């Protein structure tokens, strides 16, 4: 009873305390439950780490981040977005792993005159004609990363390729981005079910076509399944595996040595050498005991971007923050990030190889820069 009274008194004291600093409220949406829960957990870790690095303040204002779990369901995402905007009255909505979920929340948030900052999803549908001035990507447009993979494989003189991706917007974007730069023989384009766990039938079919190389996009747990089964079916003897968003900090702890040597493209890697990234990776590893994934890096960058926008404009006003972000040169784990006219980053894309680090932990390392300052191909169609 006494304790309850003390807590009540404390609570009253806190609420009655005069508000010295303004508070910026951020609604951070990600997937915290289900098979993709690990991705959301890493993003949440990274957001918390960024806040810790900034002393709990963003651009000098107290930061209040509300995490919501979209359960990887578009309808849930839409409901949550409405709740964040209308009843929680957040200043910024950020996060969002999946392209189909981003499409669901895009209109409700941007039309409420609140900034929507994606930490991951970058569907083509919001990059071109469907763009909105209140949307920013702190990741990439879906096509960009596979475009680099396509260019690398084209330059490597690969004659034929077999493509595989889940049957949803990001899967289609990935393959169309790849084909924009790869001009060889595409033997087949196979769309698998989103969330599929057994790829053996697809691998059997692939073996029968014997392509020189295979390029896959299977994010999250699907990537673990795919690479495991690829190795177990002895596919290395049939075709050379290339990937985007399939072998990363989320899948490597479950794949370990079996993923060594696999090549992929990415806008970020734990070994990118700049002050922000070195601090982020070292502190993330120390605090959470493992390498961060690109999802975590982009979540960290999202918080840095909000910090940058408030610090530079001195306000959490949507118009003012938007002007700062649109000007680009945002400090991130990928260096100073430039912004295109459709509010998607213009950035380098690297070829990454899976290797063992000095401690014997399996991670990725940049082997070459495929694109320097690469812009997406939809920006010209975007008119605010």
């Amino acid at each position, binding site marked *: 009873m006494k304790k309850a009274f003390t807590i009540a008194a404390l609570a009253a004291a806190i609420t009655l305390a005069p508000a010295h600093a303004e508070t910026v409220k951020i609604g951070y949406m990600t997937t915290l439950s289900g098979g993709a829960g690990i991705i959301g*957990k890493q993003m949440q870790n990274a957001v918390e780490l960024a806040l810790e690095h900034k002393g709990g303040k963003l651009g000098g204002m107290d930061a209040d981040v509300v995490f919501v779990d979209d359960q990887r369901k578009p309808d849930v995402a839409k409901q949550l977005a409405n709740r964040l905007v209308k009843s929680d009255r957040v200043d910024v909505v950020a996060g969002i792993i999946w392209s189909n979920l981003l499409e669901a929340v895009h209109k409700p948030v941007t039309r409420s005159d609140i900034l929507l900052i994606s930490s991951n999803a970058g569907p083509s549908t919001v990059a071109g004609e469907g763009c909105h001035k209140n949307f920013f990507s702190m990741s990439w447009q879906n096509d960009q990363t596979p475009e680099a993979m396509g260019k690398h494989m084209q330059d490597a003189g690969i004659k034929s390729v077999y493509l595989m991706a889940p049957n949803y917007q990001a899967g289609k974007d990935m393959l169309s981005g790849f084909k924009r730069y790869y001009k060889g023989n595409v033997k087949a384009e196979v*769309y698998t079910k989103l969330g599929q766990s057994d790829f053996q039938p697809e691998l059997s079919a692939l073996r029968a076509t014997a392509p020189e190389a295979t390029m896959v996009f299977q994010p999250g747990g699907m990537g673990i399944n795919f690479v495991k089964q690829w190795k177990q079916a002895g596919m290395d003897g049939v075709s050379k595996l290339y990937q985007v968003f399939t072998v990363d900090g989320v899948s490597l702890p479950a794949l370990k040595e079996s993923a060594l040597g696999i090549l992929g493209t990415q806008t970020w890697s734990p070994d990118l050498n700049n002050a922000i990234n070195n601090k982020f990776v070292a502190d993330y590893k120390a605090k959470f005991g493992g390498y961060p994934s690109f999802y975590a890096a982009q979540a960290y960058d999202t918080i840095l971007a909000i910090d940058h926008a408030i610090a530079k404009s001195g306000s959490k006003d949507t118009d003012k923050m938007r002007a700062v972000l649109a000007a680009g040169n945002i400090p991130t784990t990928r260096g100073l990030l430039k912004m295109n006219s459709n509010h998607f980053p213009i950035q380098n894309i690297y070829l990454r190889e899976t290797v063992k680090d000095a401690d014997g932990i399996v991670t990725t390392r940049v082997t070459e820069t495929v694109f320097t300052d690469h812009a997406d191909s939809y920006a010209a169609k975007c008119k605010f």
Partner: protein
Amino acid sequence: MTLTLILEQTFNGLQAGVTLFLVAAGLTLILGIMDVVFLAHGAQVMIGAYAAAAVAAATGNFYIGLFLAIPVTFASGYVLEFLLIRHLYRRDHMEQVLATFGLILFFNELIRIGFGPAALYSDLPRSLSGFVEILPGAPYPIYRLWVILVGLACAIGIHIFVSRTRIGAMVRAGANNPEMTAALGINIKILFRFIFAVGACFAGVAGMMLGPITAVQPGMGEPLLILSLVVIIIGGVGSVRGAFIAAIIVGLIDTLGRVFLPAMLRSVVDQATADGAGPAVASMLVYITMAVVLIFRPTGLFPAKG
């Protein structure tokens, strides 16, 4: 579409089918005999996979993992029946759905607290990681063949148990008329608990075998649950034989449809349309099959009550 490829895909379909059967066998008995809608059966798959992967990681031996995971899943089923499920027998289906759906969330969270949200590392033992040539030029993973064999062995075991043993006779009687069975002096409570634990155990075996080939992560059994519900509807609720045949049918339709349907569509319409519509139609095939079966045989192919 060569003969080799068709044969290989048939093996893939069989492997998917026997895995489904292991999950559906317990589910069909639980629904058929105890009349409980048990949605958390996927959690038993997950428990089996985690138990096997964790023990294998601790001991460094895949087979010890498998061996110890069987009593773990049996025990989890036994305890679960005692703590919760027996209180649901007299409740209506909606309450059972709510309670067992809650169990799904509970088990996923429990696993997340115990093992973290990340997928566990699990791999094949060296002795099962090679290939056999099922036809010249068609290497097939030994492990997948092994899964088919274990699944078939379990199916034969369940069949002999149900049709040839005394307890099996009680199970069949229980499926057909539980009140009469109880009136004849059979301890239906103990029988139910035993069936429930055995059902959980078979789902666990499915999980153990899936562990090395798929991601061992929270919620990993849920995709199997929906397909196994389809299986027991096609096979007839309460019928183990029906579940087996339906599981093989569903496994084959799903696998062959997924691979060959887009290819067939490509010869009819242009490639872009085929690539878009193919996977969508293929994923519907299983449900179309279920609808057709329901039209002509509303109680399934092999109804247990009759």
